């Protein structure tokens, strides 16, 4: 291990963290702007051109705000909880590849921090750590609303992690590897989102629940829990929770772009044109950025459209709809891959059957939610 390699790692990590943190600041701006346009208003437009300085103004405000620590709280855990929440959100992107390798300064530069063979396992492992931060924040605040928010968050994350993990499994089966680079290269000819559309939809829904985003923002339901687990937090500690949520949004979008939408690779139909990443390696981060922006817009769009789900329905949706569906998706993927070895035409088996299963689930959910008609006696 030479010093140049260490320096390269340090620089790459520094750039990634900086990009994530700046991205977090501007994601808040992006969300407020997009949400407000959907609500037929302008959104932030006072600080700077198009309100572009708004995140800076917010940051300055949050830094100078008074920080309260409740007298009856568990002080150490209370201070630790935001940190425990924010760190996984930042380190989760370590395995995401941002582009192919290229030659510069007389050495090969890889656009990832770590290319470990269990990349997806790493992502699932790190993603679940964040729940500790939230449940500790809820418990150490010594506040019943915070406690409820923390507990809800744990239950919700544990429930949706199953569907999330199983949709990962479908991708692993299709790619034949847990390595993120291998998954991206396996999508050279076709995105996994098109081979396994239901898997992609399950993944996107489950990530919304993992991120505590609307319509699954039960842990911080303002109307019921007065902001949930971070009700006692103020100033910079609150900002850390905020930062964790938005950094995780970026990270999860990067991961879903990687495993379902071709990662840093160009669109499959641009494969042999001059827009291919094989031609220009630095197009990789550009494609990644575009895909992340589109996926983030999807999350904001869902928040602008869908009302919050009732808590019992959230749980039954997770356990009774998402889990069986994702199990069957894994099954369908495995059977489809086995059949494709007999006849390549059977490759169509996976999208057709999984889309049918998806619609079947929608139909069943719809039927169970239908108001029951009771006959008069």
């Amino acid at each position, binding site marked *: 291990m030479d010093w140049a390699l260490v320096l390269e790692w340090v620089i790459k990590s520094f750039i990634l963290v900086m990009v994530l943190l700046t991205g977090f600041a501007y994601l808040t701006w992006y969300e407020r702007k997009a949400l407000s346009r959907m609500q037929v208003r302008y959104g932030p437009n006072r600080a700077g051109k198009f309100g572009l300085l708004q995140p800076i103004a917010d940051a300055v405000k949050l830094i100078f705000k008074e920080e309260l620590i409740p007298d009856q709280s568990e002080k150490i855990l209370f201070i630790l909880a935001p940190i425990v929440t924010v760190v996984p959100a930042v380190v989760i992107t370590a395995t995401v590849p941002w582009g192919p390798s290229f030659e510069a300064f007389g050495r090969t530069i890889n656009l990832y921090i770590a290319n470990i063979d269990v990349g997806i396992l790493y992502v699932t492992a790190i993603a679940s750590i964040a729940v500790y931060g939230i449940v500790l924040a809820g418990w150490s605040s010594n506040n019943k609303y915070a406690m409820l928010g923390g507990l809800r968050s744990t239950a919700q994350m544990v429930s949706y992690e199953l569907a999330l993990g199983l949709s990962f499994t479908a991708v692993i089966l299709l790619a034949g590897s847990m390595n993120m680079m291998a998954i991206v290269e396996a999508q050279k000819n076709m995105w996994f989102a098109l081979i396994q559309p239901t898997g992609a939809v399950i993944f996107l829904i489950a990530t919304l629940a993992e991120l505590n985003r609307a319509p699954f923002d039960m842990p911080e339901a303002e109307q019921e829990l007065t902001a949930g687990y971070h009700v006692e937090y103020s100033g910079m500690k609150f900002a850390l929770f905020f930062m964790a949520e938005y950094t995780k949004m970026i990270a999860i979008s990067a991961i879903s772009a990687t495993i379902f939408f071709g990662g840093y690779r160009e669109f499959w139909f641009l494969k042999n044109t001059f827009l291919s990443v094989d031609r220009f390696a630095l197009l990789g981060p550009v494609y990644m950025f575009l895909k992340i922006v589109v996926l983030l817009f999807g999350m904001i769009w869902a928040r602008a459209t*869908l009302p919050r789900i009732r808590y019992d329905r959230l749980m039954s949706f997770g356990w009774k709809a998402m889990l069986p569906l994702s199990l069957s998706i894994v099954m369908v993927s495995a059977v489809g891959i086995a059949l494709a070895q007999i006849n390549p035409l059977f490759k169509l088996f996976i999208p057709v059957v999984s889309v049918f299963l998806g619609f079947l689930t929608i139909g069943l959910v719809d039927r169970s939610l239908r108001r029951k008609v009771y006959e008069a006696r």
Partner: protein
Amino acid sequence: MRLVEPFLEMIGGMKTTLLMMFEKPVTIQYPEEKRQVSKRFRGRHELKRYDNGLEKCIGCALCAAACPADAIFVEASENTDEKRYSPGDRYASTYEINMLRCIYCGFCEDACPTEAIVLGDNYELTFTDRRDAIYTKDMLIVPVPQTGAPTPQVTEPGLFNRSVPEMADPQD
């Protein structure tokens, strides 16, 4: 069982929000862009003048009597032909409205025999001190019109001996 319809319904909802993005925002950019107030809007009071510049207010304090919030204070003084502020015998030497007490009911406007006090269009009342909330006569009175002269005026004797003018029935 409905398989596709619930999905299409959800897509329809998403489409609605997406299409709303392309509509012109309804926001009025307030400090730069102000809305027209309605015709009978009751904003900050104004003390009116006649075309010759004389004040309409004759210091009768009927507005103060009518005021349910006791926000108005009027002190009257004698007019002379050498120092004439308003037609008739007396004028308001002090006229103060406490804007923190005022409820903008418009009773003062109704009580005024000379249509001197009128609730205007200005709703941008801000102050940082309770003292600043008391608006004095200088702040309330409208500027002297083009055709008139500032008060006090020197007038011919016997010309302005009637304090309440001939008025048409109120139109609005």
